[in-house]
């Protein structure tokens, strides 16, 4: 090796001097520069080789003056030539020749000896082999080799060899090997051909090492010092255990190895590391025959000073493994896909490249298909990233206006929807054009006076019949507050819907028809029932809108009569006098709704208008730190993007986008894909807000209105029986009842009357009463047909036969 180097230096120097004889000076000059560079690199690189100027220039021409590629190509070519020469000549010469091409050998061994792959792979992460792969790679190639070569110029020791290139190289190597193995083949058994070839190569290596040791002693010395101490000591301690007999040779062998390594600068780590590991494999091998020893020469003689063939053998094997290890399994290097991409970039227009590219990309496509099939499932899981906001502090930071819900209740045809329509129209929450449209359409079917109500009565049936069936929500803003109207139906058949609406309300507006006879019938009917219901639902404040005052010519006496009757009734129902407010108004004309009436008949009224009364209401605080509870008001298909949405009001707690929620009673989980607060997209929502949740990862059959949304960490339990303290509105006895809690509406029955209670103290007056009279507070047990999500303290309403029979608190 050293001889080559010396030679090369001389040669180069000569050539360098007489290199200016080209027809095109500029181009020629560039070519010369490149040539010089290539030569230098060839000389300095590992293994150092020489090439003629012509060869270099030809290579450069092929590679479009790409120095790196040319270097690779040339090196490979020369190395091969030399190998051929060496194998043909005498053993000694052959050894010299093959010393150089020994490097590529591992590479061709790889394809030929698949078991090595496995072994290397298997031991790859064994602790004693634990030199990081990237380190090996660094030592090996980086500065020298380009990513890929053409014309067989691919760096063989690099990890970035395309398979096609590797195959080509392997084939070439095979040919070379055949020649080289021919002579020393007899020296090992015939049935161990594979081992033999490597062994033989090992022998050659050992010889070369010897040579190297002789030729470059200074390197031999420097190498051990540069070598990590840990490895040395580890090896030293390791080998004696395994092989006691050749122990004295061992250190020597290592020191002999090291020069080789340092000279080669190739696969140092893996070699040494693998050594201890691979010793058993070496052991089972037969020792070289006498013939082989003779041929090889000095192997047998200086056993103590020279490396035994076995040892060098094993070292060589190690080297092979090591290289196997670094090459095909070099995961720190670019992945095959990257190689393809790089190849695309670096070598466009080369056919061989393209074909290689094609095969790899085909494979990749197949892989994609397969993985695609694997990933295929019926329900695609949607993952929504949570922003992990601290919702409560977010809420405190956001300076939102106060938000309040109020329910509009009252007897049927009291003008609830019209009054609210007027409110919305006057506050410009509904545009004039829409109103005109409603007016035209309403007149067309002869219900002109219903035009304002149509703002809220959107259902076709509601419009056709002129009666509100289901609750409608709408919102409007004043300077201080965002109000959400919950317009409840007044008809007695739709009281369940009204209960749903009232359960969302912070306060209530009780609309009363002041018309003659209508007020009286209302007081017996739903005026009374609704007032009782909103009170038992926990509503504290009630605004009584004495509507249709225009129909009684704003008669003050009529107003006062109504005020007196209603306030006495409300007081008995449990409203405090300070929480009751009265406003005479007219929904159809808009007097005293948002503007003070200009009618001279109303001059007697100096109190607040309806909107002023609404604004005077204190906001209601919601339990944000409690576990999440939300009753589903509606399940619907929001849009194409949000195929499943639910709406409702958050009773307690908070939620944000990306949250996992649990629906009860089905017990299914869902993910919040996105959410809207009062119709505006938001990332979070807190108790008291009206939200629309767009859900993912749940089937709609698990969602029904009346179900409760909670968290898996604090779930609401499903119960089939509960005890409640109720206020009886009708006679109570064990019987079938409907149980209402917001939208939740289930059938059940009163199974036991536990006791009647004292209204004030709550002490039991009479145990096991036969019947509970109206107006009494009692404790009862209610059984339900199905498990429903209910928990104390929840306000429930019991109805039977179309009448509210009791309302109370779950215990």
């Amino acid at each position, binding site marked *: 090796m050293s001889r080559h180097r010396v030679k090369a230096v001389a040669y180069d120097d000569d050539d360098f001097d007489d290199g200016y004889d080209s027809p095109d000076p500029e181009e020629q000059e560039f070519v010369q520069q490149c040539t010089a560079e290539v030569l230098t690199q060839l000389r300095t690189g590992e293994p150092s080789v020489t090439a003629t100027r012509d060869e270099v220039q030809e290579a450069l021409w092929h590679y479009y003056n790409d120095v790196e590629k040319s270097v690779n190509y040339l090196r490979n070519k020369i190395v091969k030539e030399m190998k051929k020469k060496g194998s043909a000549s005498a053993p000694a010469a052959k050894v010299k020749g093959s010393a150089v091409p020994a490097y590529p050998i591992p590479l061709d061994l790889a394809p030929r000896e698949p078991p090595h792959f496995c072994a290397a792979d298997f031991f790859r992460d064994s602790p004693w082999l634990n030199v990081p792969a990237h380190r090996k790679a660094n030592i090996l190639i980086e500065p020298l080799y380009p990513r890929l070569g053409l014309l067989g110029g691919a760096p063989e020791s690099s990890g970035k060899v395309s398979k096609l290139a590797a195959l080509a190289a392997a084939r070439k190597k095979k040919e070379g090997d055949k020649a080289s193995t021919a002579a020393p083949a007899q020296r090992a058994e015939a049935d161990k051909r594979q081992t033999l070839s490597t062994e033989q190569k090992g022998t050659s290596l050992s010889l070369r090492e010897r040579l190297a040791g002789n030729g470059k002693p200074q390197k031999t010395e420097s190498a051990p010092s540069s070598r990590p101490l840990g490895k040395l000591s580890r090896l030293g301690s390791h080998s004696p255990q395994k092989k006691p007999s050749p122990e004295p040779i061992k250190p020597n062998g290592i020191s002999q190895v090291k020069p080789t390594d340092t000279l080669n600068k190739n696969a140092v780590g893996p070699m040494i590391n693998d050594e201890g590991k691979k010793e058993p494999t070496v052991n089972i091998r037969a020792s070289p025959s006498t013939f082989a020893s003779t041929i090889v020469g000095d192997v047998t003689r200086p056993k103590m000073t020279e490396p035994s063939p076995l040892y060098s053998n094993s070292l060589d094997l190690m080297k092979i493994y090591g290289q196997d290890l670094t090459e095909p399994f070099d995961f720190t290097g670019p992945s095959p896909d990257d190689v393809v991409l790089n190849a695309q970039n670096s070598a466009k227009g080369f056919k061989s490249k393209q074909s290689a590219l094609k095969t790899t990309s085909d494979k990749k496509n197949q892989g994609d298909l397969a993985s695609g099939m694997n990933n295929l499932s019926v329900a695609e899981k949607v993952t929504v990233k949570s922003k992990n906001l601290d919702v409560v502090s977010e809420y405190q930071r956001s300076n939102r206006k106060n938000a309040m819900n109020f329910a509009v209740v009252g007897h049927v045809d009291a003008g609830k929807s019209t009054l609210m329509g007027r409110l919305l129209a006057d506050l410009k929450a509904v545009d004039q054009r829409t109103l005109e449209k409603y007016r035209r359409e309403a007149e067309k079917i002869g219900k002109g006076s219903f035009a304002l109500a149509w703002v809220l009565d*959107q*259902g*076709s*049936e*509601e419009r056709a*019949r002129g009666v509100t*069936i*289901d*609750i*409608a929500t*709408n919102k409007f803003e004043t300077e201080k507050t965002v109000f959400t109207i919950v317009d409840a139906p007044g*008809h007695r*058949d*739709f009281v*369940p819907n009204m209960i749903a609406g009232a359960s969302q309300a912070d306060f209530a507006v009780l609309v009363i028809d002041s018309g003659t006879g209508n007020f009286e019938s209302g007081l017996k009917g739903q005026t009374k029932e609704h007032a009782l219901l909103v009170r038992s639902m926990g509503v504290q404040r009630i605004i009584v809108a004495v509507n249709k005052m225009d129909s009684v010519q704003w008669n003050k006496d009529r107003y006062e009569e109504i005020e007196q009757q209603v306030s006495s009734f409300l007081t008995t129902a449990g409203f405090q006098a300070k929480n009751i407010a009265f406003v005479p108004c007219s929904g159809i004309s808009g007097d005293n709704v948002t503007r003070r009436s200009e009618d001279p008949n109303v001059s007697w009224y100096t109190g607040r208008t309806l909107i002023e009364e609404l604004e005077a209401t204190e906001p209601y605080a919601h339990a944000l730190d409690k576990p999440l509870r939300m009753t589903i*008001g*509606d*399940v*619907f*298909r929001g849009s194409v993007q949000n195929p499943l949405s639910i709406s409702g009001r958050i009773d307690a707690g908070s939620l944000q986008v990306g949250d996992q929620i649990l629906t009860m009673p089905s017990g299914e989980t869902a993910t919040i894909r996105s959410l809207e607060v009062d119709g505006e997209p938001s990332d979070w929502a807190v108790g008291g807000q009206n939200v629309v949740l767009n859900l993912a990862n749940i089937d*709609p*059959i698990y*969602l*029904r*209105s009346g179900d409760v949304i909670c968290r898996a960490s604090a779930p609401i339990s499903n119960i089939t029986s509960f005890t409640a303290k109720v206020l009886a509105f009708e*006679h109570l*006895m*064990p*019987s*079938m009842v*409907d149980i209402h809690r917001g939208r939740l*509406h289930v*059938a059940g*029955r*009163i*199974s036991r009357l536990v006791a009647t209670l004292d209204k004030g103290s709550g002490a039991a007056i009479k*145990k*096991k009463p*036969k*019947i509970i009279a109206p107006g009494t507070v009692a404790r009862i047990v209610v059984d339900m047909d199905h498990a429903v999500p209910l928990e104390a303290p929840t306000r429930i309403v019991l*109805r*039977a*036969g*179309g*009448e509210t029979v009791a309302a109370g608190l779950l215990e």
Partner: protein
Amino acid sequence: MRLIKNKIELNGSGTVTLCPEEPEDMWHAYNLIRPGDLLRASAIRRVTTTQETGSTASARVHLTLEIRVKSLDFDPQLSQLHVGGQIVNETQHTKVGQHHTLDLELNRNFTLEKEVGSDGEGVGWDSIAVQMLKDAVDEGGKRRAEAVAVVMQEGLAHICFIGQFQTILKQKVEMSVPRKRQGGSDHDKGLSKFYQVTLDTLLRQMEFNTSATSLASNDPVRPVLLASPGFVAAGFLKHIQSVAATSMPALKRLLPSIVVVHSASGYLHSLAEVLQSPSVKTILADTKYARETKLMDDFLEQLRKETNRATYGPREVEAAVDQGAVGRGGGVLIISNRLFRSQDVAERKRWVSLVDRVRDVEGGEVRVLSSDHESGRRLDGLGGIAALLTFPVVEEDFDSDEEQS
């Protein structure tokens, strides 16, 4: 049910041979047959014979078996009665003491024997059993029309068959109908889908012939009651009409028999209100159901108005009977037949003797309500027994643990 042979002795023992003709007869059989009775009916039994060589052969043989009844299993949905017990007659294929479950079949006679033991075990044909037999045999054989009721509300419908003695919930339809929303037509769409599903289910349950050729046929169509709060039932009728007018002309046959009535909710217990409505009363003139419902309403009314002149619960009623309050002049004992179905002989004897006492000694009226009707279920909620009293009885305070019966 047809009475084939009646051999009831004076002492209450004896045999009866019956032939069930309608599904509801199975319900009667269920009430008549009690554990300890002897039941003789045809049966199919799989018999496995072992040859001397050890090989086995299995064959299904038709036998007439007599068993001593141990258990009864009644499926009201399908009206099937399975009676389990031990075989008492020896046949070629069976041994005495082997267990067998008889499946009673329509139009196949069965013979029921009740015994009165010398030491009082077994109750024989007591007054209640004889009354039940009379009810079952339905003197004159005139069956009253049974009706189909659809009790619905938005997104919920209960389809049930109202028979003479039973109300069978055939199917419950539950759908999520989107609520009305600003500018959304989902509600109407969802509602019409709900109507269509309900209609399909109803026709399937009625086994209604929907082919176009069936228009000419003269099959009687049972009355169909559509009940709902609000406009749901009316909307459903409108939907049926539009379907009849467009895609399914055979439905026109159904239309005249539909009655729309009001109910408080879509749950089954609203059926009581439905059956009391005048328009239904004209159709189901004098059904047992209507009478029972009326009775229950009367009782509850009395309880409300004059709390002390009505009472319910086993102990309370017994106390009232002891005081002679359930007697001539308006005393009515209302009792659910569930109590007679008790597995415990002593329990049954207790109620039978109470009934006999009220009827025969006190001179009061006794009404046995079917527990499979809505009114019977209401009564079951009150403990299965209630009484209208002739004079107010001041109720005693029963200790809580006593009343847990």
